[in-house]
């Protein structure tokens, strides 16, 4: 199994919010996240963006 670059890993993190990832994709992503702090942060931040966007219309300023 080939190792993911950070760009590929974050792209999978993003796609995981839009479609169900395949088994191989999930395994290689998990392996990458185990050793990469940067991508792990992004993996927490992207779902947060979704949460923020869902609340955006409630805020007037």
């Amino acid at each position, binding site marked *: 199994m080939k190792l993911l*670059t950070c760009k590929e890993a974050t792209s999978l993190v993003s796609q995981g919010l*839009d479609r169900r990832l395949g088994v191989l994709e999930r395994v290689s992503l998990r392996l990458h996240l185990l050793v990469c702090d940067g991508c792990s942060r*992004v993996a927490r931040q992207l779902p947060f963006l979704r949460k*923020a*966007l869902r609340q955006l219309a409630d*805020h007037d300023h």
Partner: protein
Amino acid sequence: MAEDFKTQVEKLRPYLLRYAQLQLRSAEAAEDAVQEALVAALAGASGFAGRSNLRTWLTGILKHKIIDLIRKASREQTVDSDEAWEAAFDGNDHWRAFPAEWDDPDRSLEQKQFFAALEMCLEGLPAKTARAFLMREHMGLETDEICKELGITSTHCWVLLYRARMALRRCLEINWFGKSAS
């Protein structure tokens, strides 16, 4: 009783305008969408019959009107540039600007200024990227619906969503999380 319904609907107009404006990025187009949605809502008031939350029901009608407008607009397509987003990675696709840890992001959701920063960052996205992203995350549409409305493949759609998320996280990191941490 009909009068009462109308008043309640009118009260929600500012919320609906704001919702439409975020998605359409034009005050004029937002007015059109909300106006059409409210006309449709008042005509179909019996369809509501208190079954669901009024705001949810109206937002549902508005979404259809917004999609109609987007469909019309996407016939004049533009090509978005990649550059701002590509700068996150070096030639080997590894981080150039290593992502920072965000300090207690949920607390930001209680702050008005956070949403102002978020909106500013959204405005910096290329038009088509922003449109796809907002359809997904703001209106909560599925990717296949977005592809259909924008006339793009699902692979292209995932790329647009990826770019939008990465550009937005970088923008917030610089303009919000970087500042509040210091």
